[in-house]
């Protein structure tokens, strides 16, 4: 039988990583993404209250962010548990999205300022739109991206998997060019 070697969206054997100043970029290959659509007024997924427009919420291993009216993207490290939680909701529609996206996490060792400096360079949005607990879809270097801010020191950018290298280039080049004062 053919011996196949799995590789990440960026063509590397393991998750790609890079470090520039206080910012560390890491490809997240282990996350499960499921899109969820609901027709009724269901307001919670297991213990997780479904967030409103522009918001991101986490409860235990499950996280979700709003992608449109009646629609969310659900994130989890445990694919089976996430699918079971969605399947338990009456009338819920779910679509497996994990392999459609490349997910890049950007962590800061110097608090929020370097992430704010990075987003100010990259997206045409007020910084508050990407405050901790917020999420949005936006345009970044002409790429259609989903951007979430799970924590003060963590920003997560997703785009179509086929554009993984373009996104990586945009993020890495911007992180590298941040002025030293903003990057530390």
């Amino acid at each position, binding site marked *: 039988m053919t011996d196949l070697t799995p590789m990440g969206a960026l063509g590397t054997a393991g998750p790609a990583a890079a470090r520039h100043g206080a910012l560390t970029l890491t490809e997240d290959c282990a996350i499960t993404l499921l899109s969820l659509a609901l027709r009724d007024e269901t307001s919670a997924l297991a213990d997780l209250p479904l967030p409103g*427009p522009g918001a991101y919420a986490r409860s235990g291993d499950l996280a979700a962010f709003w992608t449109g009216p009646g*629609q969310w993207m659900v994130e989890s490290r445990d694919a089976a548990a996430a699918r079971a939680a969605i399947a338990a909701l009456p009338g819920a529609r779910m679509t497996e999205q994990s392999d459609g996206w490349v997910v890049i996490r950007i962590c800061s060792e110097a608090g929020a300022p370097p992430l704010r400096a990075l987003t100010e360079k990259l997206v*045409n949005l007020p910084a508050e739109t990407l405050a901790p607990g917020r999420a949005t879809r*936006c*345009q970044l270097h002409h790429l259609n991206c989903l951007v979430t801010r799970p924590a003060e020191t963590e920003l997560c950018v997703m785009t179509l998997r086929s554009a993984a290298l373009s996104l990586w280039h945009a993020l890495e080049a911007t992180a590298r060019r941040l002025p030293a004062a903003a990057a530390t």
Partner: protein
Amino acid sequence: MLIPHPLLGPRDAQEFTYLGDAALMQRPDPQAGEAAFADYVFQRDNPAGVHRELWYHEYGDRSWLVVTRDTTTHEILGAKLARNVKMGLPE
């Protein structure tokens, strides 16, 4: 140009795709006849001034908006979810 999205706040017009006159939402009854459909498909008002038009938030939440815009100044006077306009719901 900023479009005041009813759910997400002010967003850059670059995130949107323009479709055209919001009158496109008033599709004639299937039995209305050829003349009504010819009007619906081909005839458009082209006002110099306030115009209601459909914009799609493609790089956003994928919602359709009815945006009121002054075509002489490009001032955006308001935006509502097209779904709510069609269903007669409040904003």
